[in-house]
């Protein structure tokens, strides 16, 4: 993580003379107010070697221009009481949101053009006639046409790209309405006609760009927060060199390299153990909650967490050959299937677009048969196209999902995919992973029926071992005095034995002590006591299970861990469906089975073994503590440890879909009134402007209801 510039760190005074040219980004989640901003900026700029520091409150980050290493900055921030986490610049990629700025620019241009044209239109509507009206129309045309050509490009591009693959979406009728309105109005202007719809074309563009921009902003907030989670992880490894060790990027590792893994760190690449023995936590990879002991030459996978002393690992696979990459390939295939999901807006567009186009055509043909000249018939037909409120229809879904996603964001959920809300609202069965999702990979013991003497012996034995289970037992027996043992001896991979006075005592694996079953056992003389232990539930899991049941969802546990533990947990949570010892492919297959039974499964999981199921399930949720790959595959990420709020995700997404449907209803109701008027030829640009604004505002206000607490 350290920027490799020891000279700078050693002589900070010299740095100020040299031009610092690297920007560090540091995440400071606790920055909240104006006082925090000035405290941080003032403190950092006084640190020698810092050229400038600027807090971004929206992103809760500090950008620092300096040559000092990130760790020095984290230290400086800790000094004034802020927890800080350096972000990996490469994982953040580009920080500037270019697409958002582009949309904002188009929105602004359309807005200003609309205001000017509207001013001219108001004059026409209030009775300007003859040469004055023609002049006003001409000026409107000169403003509107270039501005529409610039501002409405996102719709044109989208419409073109779906038309090329012979499909329809909402952008097709929108683009057509904009283009025809401008074309027809230009023709009318040149012919000295009465009606011009330039203001309608511009306000349509403006309103829809607002929707597009809001949608983009919520989505990019989710994306940048997700990227930030990824950037919090160091993508580096400690490479063993002749001189000691060197920090290198994981990409730079080669087969045969020896990497050092400090205690508590993740193994950076697949490889074989060089150190005589080690203990790792594999729960993110396989779902096993118990630590796994390894001896020299055992295979380790990237992502395992080192629980004991420092390890040396000889790298055996990099890049495409790692287990992680194989899983990533499976995920890609699974995601392609999900991308075929047709959203509510697209389904509506597939009905609406042909209907409105046929209606306009029928109007035109009808009027021509009635005996009207082609120019007037065309005028009326185009007025029908403009007045059918593509605006309200175009805003119906994005407005609601924007409001719903920002509400979920405030509750601590990142919604990454646009159609996630719709998919979540259809879910009938929730599939839960065990380790890491429902339980923490830690242990709690139930020692109520042990004599005090036995506990003292257990504690003394536990203290003689560095195994994580022993250490957890030692912590659990904090207040217990430990007995004095003679010659405690650790048998690697089995347990600890020794003598209490003359009595042989031992603590270790049940099968080593002849107690048959799996688990932990304390042996005193000939007496064997099983030490029942279980993984503690994550906070909020009980509330989550109750809440999900209250939302009429079926629950299942799908675990990679052994059956006894899975059954135990299922019983504690009051669930009767569970499956244990499931492989990653098995989880995927089970989710596919549920999908075939029209259960619309939602997977909630955190590990590599859940990743494929997360990607293939109808919808998916991952805790923020999940593995990188799992977070990438999931639709929704729980940022804080707020498991108890997960039922709200389902409740809010159902409400959002209901409101979207209501919005379509509102838009259709407006059409039911406005379309007959347009077909009969009574539509004026004023009526079009009123219908468009009123329907759009109604739809937006209705959408905002999803943001309110009940």
């Amino acid at each position: 993580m350290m920027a490799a510039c020891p000279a700078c760190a050693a002589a900070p005074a010299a740095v100020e003379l040299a031009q610092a040219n690297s920007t560090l980004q540091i995440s400071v989640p606790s920055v909240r107010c104006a006082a925090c901003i000035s405290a941080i900026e003032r403190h950092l700029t006084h640190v020698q070697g810092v050229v400038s520091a600027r807090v971004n409150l929206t992103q809760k980050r500090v950008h620092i221009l300096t040559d000092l290493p990130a760790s020095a900055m984290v230290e400086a921030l800790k000094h004034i009481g802020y927890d800080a986490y350096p972000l990996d610049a490469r994982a953040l990629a580009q920080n500037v949101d270019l697409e958002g700025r582009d949309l904002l620019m188009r929105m602004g241009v359309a807005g200003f053009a609309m205001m000017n044209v509207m001013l001219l239109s108001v004059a026409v509507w209030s009775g300007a006639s003859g040469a004055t009206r023609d002049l006003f129309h001409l000026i409107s045309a000169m403003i509107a046409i270039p501005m529409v050509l610039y501002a409405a490009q996102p719709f044109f591009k989208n419409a073109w790209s779906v038309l090329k693959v012979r499909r329809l979406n909402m952008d097709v009728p929108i683009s057509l309405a904009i283009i025809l309105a401008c074309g027809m109005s230009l023709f009318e202007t040149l012919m000295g006609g009465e009606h011009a719809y330039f203001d309608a074309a511009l306000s349509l563009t403006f309103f829809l760009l607002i929707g597009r921009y809001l949608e983009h902003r919520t989505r990019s907030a989710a994306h940048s927060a997700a990227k930030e989670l990824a950037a919090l992880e160091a993508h580096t490894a400690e490479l063993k060199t002749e001189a000691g060790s060197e920090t290198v990027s994981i990409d730079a590792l080669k087969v045969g390299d020896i990497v050092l893994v400090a205690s508590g760190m993740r193994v950076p690449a697949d490889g074989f153990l060089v150190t005589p023995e080690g203990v790792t936590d594999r729960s993110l990879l396989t779902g096993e909650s118990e630590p796994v002991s390894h001896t020299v030459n055992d295979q380790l996978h990237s992502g395992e967490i080192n629980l004991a002393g420092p390890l040396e690992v000889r790298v055996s696979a990099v890049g495409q050959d790692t287990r992680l990459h194989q899983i990533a390939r499976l995920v890609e295939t699974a995601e392609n299937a999900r991308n075929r999901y047709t959203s509510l807006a697209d389904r509506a567009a597939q009905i609406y677009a042909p209907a409105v186009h046929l209606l306009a055509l029928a109007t035109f043909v009808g009027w021509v048969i009635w005996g009207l000249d082609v120019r007037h018939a065309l005028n009326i037909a185009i007025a029908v196209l403009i007045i059918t409120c593509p605006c309200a229809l175009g805003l119906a879904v994005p407005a609601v999902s924007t409001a719903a996603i920002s509400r979920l964001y405030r509750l601590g959920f990142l919604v990454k995919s646009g159609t996630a809300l719709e998919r979540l609202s259809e879910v009938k069965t929730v599939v839960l992973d065990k380790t890491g999702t429902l339980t923490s990979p830690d242990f709690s013991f139930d020692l109520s029926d042990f004599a005090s003497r036995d506990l003292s012996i257990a504690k003394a034995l536990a203290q003689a071992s560095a195994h994580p289970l022993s250490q957890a037992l030692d912590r659990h027996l904090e207040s217990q005095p430990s007995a004095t043992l003679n010659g405690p001896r650790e048998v690697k991979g089995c347990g600890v034995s020794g003598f209490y006075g003359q009595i042989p005592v031992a603590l270790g694996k049940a099968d080593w002590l002849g107690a048959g079953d799996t688990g932990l056992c304390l042996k005193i003389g000939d007496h064997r006591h099983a030490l029942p232990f279980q993984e503690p539930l994550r906070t909020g899991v009980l509330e989550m299970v109750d809440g999900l049941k209250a939302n009429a969802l079926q629950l299942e546990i799908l675990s990679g861990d052994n059956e006894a533990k899975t059954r135990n947990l299922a019983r504690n949570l009051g669930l009767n469906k569970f499956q244990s010892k499931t492989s990653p492919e098995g989880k995927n297959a089970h989710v596919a089975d549920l999908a075939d039974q029209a259960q619309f499964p939602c997977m909630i999981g955190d590990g590599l073994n859940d990743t494929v199921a997360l990607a293939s399930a109808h919808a998916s949720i991952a805790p923020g503590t999940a593995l990188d790959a799992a977070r990438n595959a999931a639709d929704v990420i729980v940022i804080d440890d707020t498991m108890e709020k997960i039922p709200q995700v389902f409740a809010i997404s159902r409400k959002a879909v209901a409101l979207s449907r209501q919005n379509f209803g509102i838009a259709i109701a407006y059409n039911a009134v406005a379309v007959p008027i347009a077909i009969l030829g009574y539509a004026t640009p004023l009526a079009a402007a009123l219908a468009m604004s009123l329907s759009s505002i109604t739809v937006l206000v209705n959408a905002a209801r999803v943001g309110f607490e009940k």
Partner: protein
Amino acid sequence: MNVLVFLIPISLSLGGLGIWAFVWTLKSHQYDDPSGDAARILAEEE
């Protein structure tokens, strides 16, 4: 209606001024950190 000769150019140039100001705010990164800017006006100048 001769007054239009002045009024139309004036209204167009005001609109143009608005657009120019908007583009300027966008180019000078004034929308990058809205909540930070809202908080900063409360901070005392040094």
